[in-house]
């Protein structure tokens, strides 16, 4: 599948890769330059591969309270909230933002790889509720504009008022109804724009002219990893509960969501493993799947890397891993087995990168 901006990516010389069935740009000029543009100025990502599901009807709140882990009743009209979608065992089907567009109307943004599964799950669970669950992914192109100058540039280039962080505004973009959301996946300030696919190309061009740097999925991954945002399929899976993933803060078991009993159990009893951040000390770049070993204690594997990269901001190898809970303490010395070479590493506090203030 291709997003409405596919031709624009080719025109800019992007390297295109398959991502969850979509032909997506992984990089334009280079991951490090794009990463740095987002940390220092403003970059934009075509995230039109992400899915959108509209939930509407008198039972919308009760339904979302049942399927989402967070307390959805706390979201005012125009608000946004992060949640996980759990199965009965408390495993994570997806992680997502829910935006309240009106009294009984919400929009849920899904990960591309999970969109169909989420839709099927939401459809099945919605039967007991007075609610309509609609796949509206075709209605939107999605642009994430991120970086310290992102809001200024978008406001000037598109002439729209932008919402505060974790809010959503109904706006006009390219003279069509659109949504501006105060959310993102980079650890920087910025917005995500949900716009009519027919105006995606001219809007992309206007933002380019305004100096926003086009960025690919490569930089999106290094940016999110530096601030320790989990990625579904890596840190989050249906076999892992949100407690071990460090997402207990977005789980409100008192709401009785599907999986809440298992999540409450994991919270009370603790989990055998925990998701940690780590930095390599010295050389080596960790990658997904690398074993985590005890330092200096032979060949005992104590964990596994879920995401690893060269961190452009820190200029070292860094990543996230599940390790035995007793080794999850910040400062714990471990080794990462990077293709047979044992690289010393240390458990680090999250996020790995924080803005100097």
């Amino acid at each position, binding site marked *: 599948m291709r997003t409405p901006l596919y031709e624009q990516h*080719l025109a800019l*010389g992007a*390297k*295109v890769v398959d991502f969850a069935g979509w032909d997506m740009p*992984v*990089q334009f000029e*280079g*991951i*490090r330059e794009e*990463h740095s543009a987002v940390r220092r100025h403003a970059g934009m990502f075509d995230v039109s591969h992400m899915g959108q599901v509209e939930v509407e009807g008198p039972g919308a709140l009760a339904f979302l309270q049942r399927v989402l882990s967070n307390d959805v009743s706390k979201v005012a009209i125009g608000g946004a909230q992060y949640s996980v979608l759990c199965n009965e065992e408390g495993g994570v089907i997806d992680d997502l933002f829910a935006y309240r567009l009106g009294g009984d109307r919400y929009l849920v943004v899904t990960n591309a790889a999970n969109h169909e599964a989420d839709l099927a799950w939401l459809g099945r669970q919605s039967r007991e509720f007075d609610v309509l669950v609609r796949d509206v992914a075709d209605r939107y192109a999605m642009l994430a504009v991120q970086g310290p100058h992102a809001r200024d540039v978008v406001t000037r280039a598109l002439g729209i008022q932008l919402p505060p962080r974790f809010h959503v505004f109904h706006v006009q973009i390219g003279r069509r109804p659109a949504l501006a959301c105060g959310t993102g996946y980079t650890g920087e300030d910025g917005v995500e724009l949900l716009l009519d696919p027919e105006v995606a190309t001219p809007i992309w061009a206007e933002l380019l002219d305004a100096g926003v740097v086009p960025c690919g999925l*490569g930089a999106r*991954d*290094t940016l999110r990893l530096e601030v320790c945002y989990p990625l579904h399929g890596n840190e989050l899976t249906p076999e892992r509960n949100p407690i071990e993933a460090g997402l207990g803060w977005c789980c409100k078991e008192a709401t009785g969501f599907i999986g809440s009993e298992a999540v409450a159990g994991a919270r009370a009893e603790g989990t055998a493993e925990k998701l940690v951040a780590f930095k390599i000390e010295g*050389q*080596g*770049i960790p*990658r997904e799947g690398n074993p985590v070993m005890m330092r200096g204690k032979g060949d005992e594997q104590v964990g596994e890397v879920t995401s690893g*990269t*060269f961190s*452009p901001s820190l200029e070292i*190898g860094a990543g996230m891993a599940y390790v035995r809970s007793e080794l999850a303490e910040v400062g714990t010395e471990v080794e990462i087995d990077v*293709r047979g*070479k044992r690289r010393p590493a240390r458990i680090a506090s999250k996020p790995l990168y924080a803005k100097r203030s």
Partner: protein
Amino acid sequence: MAPASSEGTYPEDLRYHEEHDWARIEGDQATFGITWYAQDSLGEVVFYDPPEVGATIQKDSSYAEVESVKAVSDVIAPLSGEVLEINEALVDAPEKVNEDPYGDGWLVKVRLTHPEESEALLGVEEYRKLLDS
């Protein structure tokens, strides 16, 4: 995507291996590196893991690793030999592999143990044909 070979440069005086490596042969010694196409496919090189000086390397086998932000790539030896020297400058400045793949971005110098193997390598025209196919 535009074909990479149309933008890349491929010096006439080098011999090429189909795994996108080059060899500059001088008597019984040679310098190895990766081609413009290889560095462009990989992206910005952020780490070079060289072999030890004195190590024996085997034609068609991996002798080093280069990594970009996104991926790691084995570097395949175009010829067999013994490592005489590694490019120490790449430890601090691995991006030279991208900036100057045939010059400052060289990877190792070797003493060839089977110089006759070079007959199996490609000339520049053959290598370009491989890229275009």
